[in-house]
């Protein structure tokens, strides 16, 4: 099944692109490709929201258009505010071409971010720690933990910058945070570099404590379930968040409430 999967036809103008864009990832809503920017020597990420044949065509275009524009608006705003996210290089919400229906899907071309996602960095570190912990002395262990603490704290200040700019991410996980670095291949990864937020497909413009607290909560849960050894350092994230955002106190108070009830607000009363 996986072998004969054919991604949907590319929308115009990427049918002309040479070499053809390379499919990197696909989700329910979008496909992400690596290609070149408008300068052939500079790479770019291309996000395509293909048309969904099971949806009514008018509704399909309307939803796709709305969502890709919302994502692009958030990114452009964040770039203007100096928050580290991939910049929008080009956009087409009409998405002509592609299939015979004449609607290939909307697309968004973004700045390419070089580096691993934080999920991979933490996974490799945890795997390495599991193997080597018993042979490490206390000093080395605390050095190792300090590296992770530092990274998680920088994640916190990146999220603070995002929220201060008036945007909430809507799907914060360690897969949606990247570390912009020149990495050397190896079993552990450098934790130096700039934390860059990616995938704003569910983002929106909001300054509500509730939305901000849910962002933090979703990430806390994601770290708890995917990075058990790093979970004890989540407090560093909140320290970094507080440092980067003076109005953090009320958000963090709200986070306490969200922790008690979960991400969804009660529908009762």
């Amino acid at each position, binding site marked *: 099944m996986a072998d004969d999967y054919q991604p949907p036809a590319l929308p115009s103008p990427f049918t*002309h*692109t040479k070499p053809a864009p390379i499919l990197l990832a696909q989700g329910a809503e979008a496909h992400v490709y690596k290609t070149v*920017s408008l300068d052939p020597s500079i790479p770019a990420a291309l996000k395509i929201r293909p048309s969904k044949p099971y949806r009514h065509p008018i509704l399909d275009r309307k939803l796709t258009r709305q969502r890709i*524009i919302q994502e692009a608006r958030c990114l452009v705003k964040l770039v203007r505010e100096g928050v580290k996210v991939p910049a*929008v290089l*080009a956009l087409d*919400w009409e998405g002509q071409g592609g299939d015979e229906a004449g609607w290939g899907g909307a697309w968004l071309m973004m700045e390419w971010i070089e580096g691993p996602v934080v999920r991979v960095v933490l996974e490799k570190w945890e795997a390495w720690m599991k193997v080597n912990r018993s042979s490490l002395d206390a000093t080395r262990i605390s050095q190792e933990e300090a590296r992770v603490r530092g990274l998680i704290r920088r994640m916190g200040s990146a999220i603070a910058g995002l929220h201060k700019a008036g945007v909430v991410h809507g799907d914060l996980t360690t897969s949606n945070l990247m570390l912009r670095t020149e990495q050397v291949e190896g079993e552990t990864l450098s934790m130096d570099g700039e934390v860059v937020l990616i995938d704003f497909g569910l983002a929106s413009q909001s300054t509500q404590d509730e939305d901000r607290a849910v962002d933090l909560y979703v990430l806390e849960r994601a770290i708890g379930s995917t990075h058990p050894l790093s979970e004890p350092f989540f407090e560093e994230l909140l320290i970094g968040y507080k440092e980067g955002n003076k109005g953090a106190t009320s958000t963090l108070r709200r986070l306490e409430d969200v922790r008690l009830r979960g991400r969804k607000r009660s529908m009762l009363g």
Partner: protein
Amino acid sequence: MTMAPLETINLPHLPAELPVFVALYRNVENAEFLRQQLLAGNTEYEYALIDASMVLSRTHAITAIFRAVNDYLNNRLKSRNVHSEIVFSFLAANNIADSFRKFGIADTTKDLLVVKVPVSPEITHDSVATHLEASIKGTSVKFDDQILSEISDMAKIKKVYKLGALPTPGAKQASGTPDDANRRLELSVVGAIALRGS
């Protein structure tokens, strides 16, 4: 002084048979005449004629050109032709007349960016180069960031794109390097062009 030749740019993602021809001029002496030809609809002078002081960088210009040519290929021009659409694409808002006032050639323009898209087979690199040589009284220079940085009016560009709050490139920075400020301004402008009409 050697003249810079007319540059042919093959934009990635666009059909190979549709390159764009670009030339940059300084010390232009006949801007008024060129503008009159545009106003009269003289098709021999159908070019995108852009006041180069409003161009931040090569990337800035190429972003606007790409947007216009892509809209041309998808039959959704908002203005008369692909050349007026290039001028229009520099503006972040949906106002064609305003785009010409802010980015188009004026009678006083001294630095001029000229773009031609070969929308019919008789338009070739040579035909465009010959016509420009005969028509534009000015010094052709290389279309690159170094020269554009000498030409561009940073304050006016920031104002037109409503980016006054951004740090000014080249000024002393409280945080970050001048390169960071430059890049942030450029990417903010690029984003504004991409979002126009959304």
